[in-house]
């Protein structure tokens, strides 16, 4: 899960330390696009992801208006390939294809929202800590150290378990888990940027703090934490579905992949393949996010492609 955090932070900090201050030029983005166009894996996974997003957002369209909550006792646990239910039905006779499409909405939301929240909160706290330094900086960073001391999934489960289940609590729990690494990256980059010659020069010539942060600090911080955030989405999707799987996230009868996997678990002896499907969706989505973030990273890494 977010086991990758440690080596990730280390790698990002390395990247940040090596080559921050070159502001991307228009030619740079053209080069990135050219490199991406030559990378079939990244293009393929991006297309798959767009497909998943399409069937989730366009769920009423692709399922022909089937009600994701309407089941029938007579149609319980049908196998894959049943006429009218091409992916089978779940334990209360609801069409699985329909539920998988609708489930994508909550699963993607519950995965992406915590990353966005922690990106903003963590970025803000990190820039604050790095720029203000002193007591404020120490206070923020030492608090983050404490949260670093928890294995991420343990902290998420503890918070979610105590706040009670529900989508919003699972989002809060995961945001808290993802904030510390974001703060660390933002703080390191900010501290480095603050000492750069041209930032010193800007300050000496009377540029206000807000302007320096907006023009110089933010430009340097955004790159590394955005890269980190994209790689975090895959982890976040797995964890949020995991919370629902434990019964701590989204509540029934809502459609969400982790919850569906949990409720179909009992049916594993009756319809094994149907029971494994929601998990396969989680896997495919997280795999695609991982590969896409890898692809974008190497396309954007100037040093790899001289």
């Amino acid at each position, binding site marked *: *899960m977010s*086991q*990758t955090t*440690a*080596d990730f932070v*280390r*790698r990002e900090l390395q990247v940040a330390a090596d080559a921050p201050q070159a502001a991307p030029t228009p030619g740079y983005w053209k080069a990135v696009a050219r490199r991406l166009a030559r990378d079939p894996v990244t293009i393929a996974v991006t297309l798959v992801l767009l497909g998943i997003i399409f069937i989730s957002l366009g769920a009423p369209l692709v399922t022909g208006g089937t009600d994701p909550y309407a089941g029938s006792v007579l149609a319980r646990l049908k196998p894959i390939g049943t006429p009218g239910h091409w992916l089978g039905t779940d334990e209360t006779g609801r069409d699985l294809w329909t539920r998988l499409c609708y489930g994508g909405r909550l699963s993607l939301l519950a995965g992406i929202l915590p990353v966005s929240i922690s990106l903003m909160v963590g970025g803000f706290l990190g820039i604050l800590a790095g720029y203000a330094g002193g007591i404020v900086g120490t206070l923020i960073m*030492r*608090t983050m*150290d*404490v*949260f670093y*001391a*928890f*294995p*991420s*999934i*343990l902290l998420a*489960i*503890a*918070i979610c*378990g*105590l*706040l*009670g289940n529900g989508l919003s609590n699972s989002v809060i729990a995961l945001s808290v888990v993802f904030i510390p690494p974001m703060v660390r990256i933002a703080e390191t980059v900010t501290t480095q940027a603050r000492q750069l010659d041209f930032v010193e020069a800007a300050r000496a010539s009377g540029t206000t703090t807000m302007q320096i942060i907006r023009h110089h600090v933010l430009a340097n911080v955004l790159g590394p934490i955005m890269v980190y955030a994209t790689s975090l989405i*895959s982890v976040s999707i*797995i964890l949020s*579905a*995991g919370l629902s*799987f*434990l*019964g*701590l996230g989204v509540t029934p009868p809502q459609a969400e992949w982790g919850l569906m*996997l949990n409720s179909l*678990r009992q049916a*594993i*002896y009756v319809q*094994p393949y149907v*029971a*494994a499907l929601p*998990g*396969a969706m*989680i*896997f495919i989505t*997280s*795999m695609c*996010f*991982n*590969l896409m973030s*890898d692809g974008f990273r190497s396309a954007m890494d100037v040093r790899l492609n001289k």
Partner: protein
Amino acid sequence: MLIFAARRLIQAIPILLGVSLVVFGLVHIVPGNPIDLLMPPEASPEVIAQMKAAFGFDKPLYIQYLLWLGRALRGDFGLSVFNATPVWGQLVAALANTFVLAILAAMLGFTLGIVCGLVAAIHHGRWPDKLFSAIATTGVSLPHYWCAIVLVLACAVLHDWLPAQGMGDDSLPLYDRLEYLVLPVVTLSLIPMGVIARLVRATVLEIIGQDFVGALTAKGLTRWPVIRHICKNAAPPVLALMGLQFGYLLGGSILVETVFNWPGSGNLLNLAIFRRDIPVLQATILVLASFFVVLNLLVDIAQAAIDPRIRR
């Protein structure tokens, strides 16, 4: 070296205190007293007050924290609110079961990860690299609770190779009890395998590009001695990640333990959440997080022992 170790040890104390504060605070950000949530609505106020006094929930928060911390330091986590048995005993039994899984999964995952990463790096850009990198990425992207279900499906439902869940009886012969370990251990080892393989590959590739490797080859060293030098230089970051990974195996096995119904600490935590058993919950999280801190401490010291540059 000793000074470094001592300094690192002292740094860990405020972190541990912070951890205890978070664990204690988490319970109290939720409105309502733990006893109020547990008692039936028809219970008389006197009985509720009596229960609160018995479990110490009637005192001000900071007193509760200090009392709790003082007892926790002596290994006394009180009684479970659910079944009034000592928390410590439940926790030790559960932790032992989790340890068995974590150690076996770590051994399997780390070995496979190092081998995959090394092979991929040495054959950089050719098919072994692509194959092992793909395996590593899969390992990182797998929702392991799903992987557990798929393994049960393949080995216990479709075929009758291995037991689907539980940990077997004490009465069973050793061989039969080992069968219960296979699926959870394999499931748990996949993530460490992927993560370690990716890091080993990246680190080794970075080191291969350095001048000293070229110098060693130029001096006439054959392939294996050069690889040995590379491994020694790649060890510190890999070791650090292994420590973290082992911590995650201990603290993050809750999902896999739930699927396999393994009576470990994750399962205990899960039960505590659904029973609203605050003492058990607090103790489990505190002990697991403290393990994690101590583990990181040990890894830092081990790293410094291998690589003098880290000591500073």
